[in-house]
């Protein structure tokens, strides 16, 4: 039953990340962190499955995911920085200029 518990853990982490994205209304840094958490959950899931299925491919994927997550957070932080320079604030509920 260990496998099921691991899977439940990663699922819980993933939904925690998603919940952070949906419920967080102000802080854009927390949004970025939530994305990191869900990506980590995904990576962990890959590792667990790789060990469980005895297949190296999952670990390879996990490495790629880590790389992508690193790139993504760096670009995300850069965008936030650029945004901060223009607006002087990074509150998410004020970034709603593109209404219909």
């Amino acid at each position, binding site marked *: 039953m260990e496998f099921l518990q691991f899977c439940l853990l990663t699922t819980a982490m993933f939904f925690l990340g*998603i919940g952070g*994205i*949906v*419920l*967080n*209304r102000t802080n854009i840094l927390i*949004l970025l962190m939530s994305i990191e958490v869900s990506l980590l959950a995904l990576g962990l899931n890959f590792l667990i499955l790789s060990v469980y299925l005895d297949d190296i491919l999952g670990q390879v994927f996990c490495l790629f995911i880590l790389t992508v997550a690193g790139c993504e957070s760096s670009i995300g932080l850069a965008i936030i920085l650029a945004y901060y320079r223009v607006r002087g604030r990074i509150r*998410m*509920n004020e*970034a*709603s*200029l*593109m*209404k*219909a």
Partner: protein
Amino acid sequence: MYLNIVFLPLLGSIAAGLFGRFLGSQGAAVLTTTCVGLSLCLSGLAFYEVGLGSSPSYVHLLTWMESDFFHANWSLCFDSLTVVMLVVVTFISSLVHLYSTEYMGEDPHLPRFMSYLSLFTFFMLLLVTADNFLQMFVGWEGVGLCSYLLINFWFARLQANKAAIKAMLVNRVGDFGLALGIFAIFLSFDAVDYASVFAMAPLLSGSQICFLGMDFDALECISLLLFVGAVGKSAQVGLHTWLPDAMEGPTPVSALIHAATMVTAGVFLLARCSPLLEYAPKACFLICILGAMTAFFAATTGLVQNDLKRVIAYSTCSQLGYMVFACGLSNYSVAVFHLANHAFFKALLFLGAGSVIHAMGDEQDMRKMGGLRRLLPFTYAMMLVGSLSLMGMPFLTGFYSKDLILEVAYGSYTTGAHFAYALGTLAAFCTAFYSFRLIYLSFLSEANGRRPLLLGASESSWPISTALGILAIPSIFIGYLGKDLFIGLGTPFWGNAFFALPGHLSLVDAEFMPTAMKILPVCLSIVGAILAFVLYRDFPQTLVRWKLSPWGRKLYTFLNRKWFFDKFYNEGISQNFLDFGYHFTYKAIDRGFIEMLGPFGLSNLSLAQGARVVSWQTGMLYHYAFVIVAGMLAFAFLSTMGFSAKLLALLTLASLALL
């Protein structure tokens, strides 16, 4: 020769209508008159061959429609009834053409007028020579169309436009009945040609046709529907309102419509369908009653009209009533005899009235005439002949047919027939009264017209006088000459043109009625004529006092306003239909139903929904995130439930409704 009778007027019409500008006024007039005149000569020959020589003939032209049992030809059938109508129609029409060349001579559109007149004649000839109901219907609609064009000839006049539209529409009510009748005939007989239908009529006596789940007696139903057509065309009470208004057209048109063509088509239809009517006693009863009512109604209305042409129009209506009830009493030969006689003296009256109006500078009000007997002695004589003939003075044309109609009414031992006799006799009295009122007011009384008009009034030139003179001869003699041929006992002239059950013939019974009853209509006519003469000459003050008394005023208004038929129709029926059209079909259905629920409504709905969906785009990141997650969960849910298009559609609709 038989083809030429029908198609010469069409040739004249086309030539005058399309090439009138090259022919010129006089050219078109001469051409059309010649064509119709030639047609008259040939009709005379046809009358000799078919009528007197007892050799009905039949000309097949081509097949018109053929589909399974349905078979309609273009073909001409000449039997006694047809040739009588042919002679009458072409005779009157030729004289009207001749008359018009002078009467309408000043009009810049004379070629158009002559073209319409000839076309009218052509359609009437097509109507009477048809050998099946369908071809007859072509003629039937054609004369309706031409009457519209002719009544509306002076199309710049609002009154003429209104009268023409009224004539067209009221006629259309009857035409609808006739069309239904033809459908019913095809439904019952599987044929529309006269020969088959009339041969099978006895077999279908008592059979039923089913309409809207109800069973009707087939022949009664057909007869009634055909009679509805006749009511419209022959201006019987109910659909008569168009006829007096049709006086708005030029006078020769009134003569053509009211004397020989158009209105006689209804009577012709009844006579033609005699084998059907004979097996429909209930329908015959109704025809008889309605005809008698028309005769009486129109005669009383004619008593107090002040328009010269309108008086004659009502007398037409009244005389048609006589013919119709004669048909209802199964005495078709008598009806057709009266039709022919009436054509002559009514054409004479109308053309005479036209001559008077011409002389008085288009004044039609009788109260503004008077004293014309010295100015227009010839017209006066002609009008007198026509009027005496109309009121059935002994030994003039009208006497032989009109009195016979009343006699056969008295001779038939049925309630309807006696009702018709009573009303017809009263109508005869009224006819004499208004005829003499007309004569007295326009010719005999003191001159009431305007001085310059009276000084300038003179007898019309030769075409008008010739037409009147020629018409006066048959108006005097044709009844006496034709009596034995048309309505003599056992005359072989009609051959198989009419069919009457032996029990329905009352010509013999009429011979044995009491002498008092026989001469009653004539006596009443003479009394009526003398009464009118004496009252208007010696007691005009008394007449005015009667008119102004409380009851007299009511009666006068009632009669002068035509028994309030027009008022009732306008306010009770037309206005309601117009309101229905505006408020229901236009406002509720067109504007309401279709625009709210139809294409317009649908596009409005989708636009509104689109706007509501757009409002979801708040610009907030977490809203977008929520929709993404919710959508992903929904799809995950769907895929676990088994992905189906139906479910997806349901979900989309539900979400749309939620929005």
